[in-house]
């Protein structure tokens, strides 16, 4: 039965009083930090990471992380619904209907369907991880260097070309990350220092935590400081969180469909949760008996995407635990946390650290349950945290960012790096460079280099050593499809679609970015967030709309306005 018996063993690890306490603290802290506006789960984990430095037993530390992970995700959805402030791109879709529901006085129901949907999706997703991970790890053990290199290249290509709309900017972000990853002593036999400029503290490379906290926390704080809205946004209060019978009837199917949609997207190393949450929204709108409510606060539009988001987060644990491959910013920070403890996720992790893995999965289930029990009654209290004055919020983010970065190595050099990387994060936000590819580049870059050099060592420098396995060739074929899709789209799909739907505004732009999906003619213009126009690599990709124009679906295609 896959890993279910081991999972039961994991409960023995997790259900000790001290570990339950760690899970509880994790859930509370994760929710409290995740609820704060502008802080997504990735930043919540990065900021809370130093708290676990003092915990000697990695199992306990990871049990706390499990709590922080789901707590941060839940907190993020609360913020989205009450404040229309998605802490990460994956909860943007939740914010759309959720905030509309809240404005119609149904905040309690929106929070409840999000919480219960997250619980169901997280539980099913975690069980699926337990079922699938051992089998995938067994397969992954047989993978060689060329295969790993190919999968990492896939992750690079996917993170730059699927998520944002501007490939050039995504690629620039990835390269900035790869450059940061180059700093330090070469991992090969030569042992030479690269890009260290004779600074001894750089020889070990730049700590991933410093990079993550710098790009996310410091970059965000600087960016907001430069553009702080002087009057705070209107906040919606919530009563006791509950759902009527009709809400249950309308929610349970979207929860399950969202789970089914989110998990596979999270589990393939090309994902992220943006695409599946968006697909879930569209699906629920199509299947709903109340499609007219969409855009005005339909409960299905909260239940589906929120379940999708959590299932996708759980699915993301599969490549993380079995291949050591993070597919989202949150997973990347989790991987950094693993590395802090000298643990390298990969196919051998299940063999080498069974107590840790199964304890972690069991605590994810426990944390999820604690979250549900605790947060339904506590929601009004969390909502109060949204009132925190913005100067204190961002001063606090910088305060804890410095504390965490200093605590890693007790070195002021790390603080200087933190500041410089924060400035880079600011510039990236200013000019629309997505941050996630940079983080993935920092973490995967050095490992991709090791695998590439190992593969070429085996083939004695012959380039065929990079694609002499069936697996790697298959992965490269997938990459080719991703890279070439805009061209296919430009010359084959788009002309055909235009013949069918001459009005360019009446279509679903994200369909362009998704190979194999049928065109959704008749859908109103809608957008993947962070979309941009004018990038030549994506001239045919999604029409760029800022988030708030999603509520104005009848505006014409922005490209027609922007290019006189």
């Amino acid at each position: 039965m896959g890993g279910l018996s081991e999972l039961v063993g994991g409960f023995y690890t997790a259900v000790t009083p001290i570990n339950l306490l760690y899970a509880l603290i994790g859930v509370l802290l994760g929710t409290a930090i995740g609820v704060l506006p502008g802080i997504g789960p990735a930043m919540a984990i990065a900021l809370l990471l130093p708290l676990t430095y003092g915990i000697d037993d990695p199992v306990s530390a990871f049990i706390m992380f499990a709590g922080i992970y789901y707590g941060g995700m839940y907190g993020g959805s609360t913020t989205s619904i009450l404040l229309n402030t998605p802490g990460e791109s994956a909860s943007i879709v939740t914010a759309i209907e959720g905030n509309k529901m809240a404005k119609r006085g149904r905040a309690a129901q929106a929070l409840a369907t999000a919480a219960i949907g997250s619980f169901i999706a997280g539980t099913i997703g975690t069980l699926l991880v337990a079922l699938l991970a051992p089998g995938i790890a067994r397969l992954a053990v047989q993978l060689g260097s060329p295969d790993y290199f190919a999968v990492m290249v896939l992750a690079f290509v996917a993170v730059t070309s699927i998520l944002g709309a501007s490939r050039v900017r995504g690629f620039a972000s990835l390269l900035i990350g790869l450059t940061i990853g180059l700093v330090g002593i070469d991992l090969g036999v030569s042992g030479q220092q690269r890009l260290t400029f004779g600074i001894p503290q750089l020889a070990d490379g730049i700590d991933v935590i410093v990079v993550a906290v710098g790009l996310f926390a410091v970059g965000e704080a600087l960016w907001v400081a430069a553009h702080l809205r002087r009057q705070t946004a209107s906040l919606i209060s919530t009563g006791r969180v509950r759902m009527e019978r009709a809400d249950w009837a309308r929610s349970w199917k979207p929860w399950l469909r969202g789970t089914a949609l989110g998990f596979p997207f999270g589990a393939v190393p090309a994902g992220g949760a943006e695409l599946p949450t968006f697909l879930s929204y569209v699906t629920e709108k199509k299947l709903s008996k109340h499609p007219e409510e969409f855009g005005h606060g339909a409960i299905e539009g909260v239940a589906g995407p929120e379940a999708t988001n959590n299932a996708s987060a759980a699915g993301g644990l599969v490549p993380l635990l079995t291949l050591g491959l993070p597919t989202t910013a949150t997973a990347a920070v989790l991987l950094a946390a693993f590395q802090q403890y000298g643990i390298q996720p990969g196919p051998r992790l299940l063999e080498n650290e069974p107590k840790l893995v199964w304890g972690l999965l069991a605590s994810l289930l426990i944390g999820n349950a604690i979250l549900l029990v605790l947060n339904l009654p506590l929601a009004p209290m969390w909502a109060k945290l949204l009132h925190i004055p913005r100067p204190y919020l961002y001063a606090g983010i910088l305060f804890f960012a410095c504390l965490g970065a200093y605590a890693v190595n007790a070195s002021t050099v790390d603080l200087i790096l933190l500041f410089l990387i924060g400035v880079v994060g600011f510039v990236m936000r200013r000019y629309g460079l997505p941050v996630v590819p940079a983080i993935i580049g920092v973490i995967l870059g050095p490992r991709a280099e090791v695998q590439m050099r190992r593969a070429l060592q085996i083939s004695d420098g012959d380039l065929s050593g990079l694609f002499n396995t069936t697996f790697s060739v298959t992965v490269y074929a997938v990459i080719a499809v991703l890279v070439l899709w805009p061209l296919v789209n430009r010359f084959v799909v788009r002309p055909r679609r235009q013949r069918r739907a001459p009005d360019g505004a009446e279509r679903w732009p994200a369909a362009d970015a998704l190979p194999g999906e049928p065109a959704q003619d008749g859908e109103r213009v809608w957008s993947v967030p962070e979309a941009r126009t004018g990038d030549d690599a994506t001239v045919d990709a999604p029409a760029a709309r800022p988030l708030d124009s999603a509520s104005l679906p009848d505006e014409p295609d922005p490209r027609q306005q922007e290019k006189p």
Partner: protein
Amino acid sequence: MISRITRQGQDRSEFLVVLFLLALGVLVLVDAARLHSGVGQREPVGPQAVPFLVGGLLVVTAVLLARDILRGGHGEPEGGEDVDLSHGNDWQALLLLSAAFLANIALIERAGWPISGAVLFFGCAYALGSRHFVRDPIIALVLSIGTWYLFVLGLGIGLPVGILKGIL
């Protein structure tokens, strides 16, 4: 809607990103040029291969980005509920924030975290427009001393105590 407001005057400054990528690429290439394979070691791909690749791609990306901007492409500034993009950068807030940050770096090992952390928090809050001259320093000190005790006693992680040695 954000895009239309920020459209004016943005296009030229966007070339700063091009320059940044270009400079970074050249830096990586120059650094890679001085690397050499280990003496007497057989390694088909030396330590300079990936830096050459990354540096080269940085230069290529800079060129592609320049072409994109010339063709009318632009990067959308990141929005958010606390972010008001209708006016330009608030340079005063940014400079004050940076000053607070750098003060912390300068002070942390001399004056200790309880002092430098408080300076950091108070400075940032001030930079962001908070003007409570009694409440803010109290919050700042409670936070910095509280985290010092939490880390040193609770978590066993050393933070510099500085001039308050013997008092805390």
